[in-house]
């Protein structure tokens, strides 16, 4: 299974294995990684699974849909590298991915 590292805003790292086909949001929630609220359950509708993906991984994590761009627009501290974790599906190509979490999910 691909391994994904989530780094909390305070620097704590959580390296977990996430099955192919699950989203990065599910990978965090299933493995009790703190800092992802995911209020809407993965519908791209609440912007509470905000993460930052390093630029070198962006070609593998795909593009944002219009809805994702809009929801991120309302998220606190959103940057160019911001994504919603529910909108990135894990593939073998993402093995070793590192994502960072914002200070808060609102």
């Amino acid at each position: 299974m691909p391994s994904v590292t989530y780094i909390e805003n305070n620097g704590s790292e959580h390296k977990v294995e996430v099955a192919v086909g699950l989203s990065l949001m599910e990978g965090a929630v299933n493995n009790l990684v703190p800092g992802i609220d995911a209020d809407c359950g993965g519908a791209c509708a609440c912007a509470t699974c905000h993460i930052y993906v390093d630029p070198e991984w962006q070609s593998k994590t795909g593009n944002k849909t219009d809805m994702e761009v809009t929801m991120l627009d309302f998220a606190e501290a959103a940057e160019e590298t911001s994504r919603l974790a529910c909108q990135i599906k894990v593939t073998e190509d993402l093995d070793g991915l590192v994502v960072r979490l914002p200070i808060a999910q609102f």
Partner: protein
Amino acid sequence: MSVAYDENNRPPSAYDVPLEDIDVSDGLLFQTQQHFEYFERLRKEDPVHYCKDSEFGPYWSITKFNDIVAVDTNHKVFSSDKTIVIGDADPDFNPPMFIAMDQPKHDVQRKVVTPAVAPVNLAKLEAHIRENVCEILDSLPVGESFDWVDRVSIELTTRMLAVLFDFPWEDRRKLTWWSDVTTSSPDQTGADGSIVNEEERKKELMECLEYFMNLWSSRGENYEGTDFISLLATNPDTMEMSNDPLEFLGNLMLLIVGGNDTTRNSISGGVLALNQNPAEYDKLRANPEVIPNMVSEIIRWVTPLGHMRRTALEDTELNGKQIKKGDRVVMWYISGNRDEEVIENANQFIIDRDKARHHLSFGFGIHRCMGNRVGEMQLRILWEEIMKRFEKVEVIGEPGRLRSNFVMGITEMMVKLHPLKA
């Protein structure tokens, strides 16, 4: 379709009305709490239901959790333009507000006021909220009966709103009044006209505008504040808003209601739910750590705003039903939050429930509640401080309920406080 009330002036049982004649827009259903039975039937028998005739005109009822999410997140088909409640706005008096706008204007205005409730501001607010909570709780008469709604629910939410607006403290109950006036339109939300009629409503709201115009003019240019008025008055995107007084008023109404009725009724409703479910109150006493989770469960359970309305911009299909361009589409959050297919034991109040944040009360998509974290924070701090002081907040009478299909309001609730056992 109006149905005959019984000899006690109550609507009939949901199961005694032909399915096609069911009309859940009647404000009385919510006042008598019969709406739960009506929605239970619709979820089971006709989850996307067409009511061909009501006092607000024909409308679709969307009653299941996932269908509501589908509508709420499809803002390109389901428009919020002009109104977000079941009854159409008065074309001669419809102050524009960003909740009732589509993109792109909605996004611009929403972003201007968001900093008031952003994390950095919330952190500043926390100590202030706690101070006010303590002051309110410590002023309550222990062992005597009093109205929790007036002394706690209204007082706390109004104080916080006064802070968010940097509003003159001694006049803060005006905010409560303007909030009630805003949501009490008989023509739009099924109120009975006992608070204001349409003419009085307009007059009161114009007074609200005048009051805020004076505040606005004192905060232009170089005023540095993170209150809503300063943010609107100093941001290039909205600083001209005072030239369009109705648009200024509309956004004030939105922010006032958003911060008022919602948290107020969650405060009252939480006390009531714990009284009705003593085993849950025991759980809370045994483990106050559950409070943040309980806060989400209270907000689900109460669903302070019962519905949001959209208007279809094109023909579309939803759960097998053909919705036509121009149709009125009502998402009943109060029903979706009791949908057993998505929420396990949805008809039970469970303070330590799993995935408690997964509820519809804040809406989803671009119009999702902007102040949800402020509301949650007020409830969390209030319950932390209640548990430090009282063994029980005992409800000692049947609470009064508001007649409205929009605000799930508790108007009065007599309680008696029992201090912590030494």
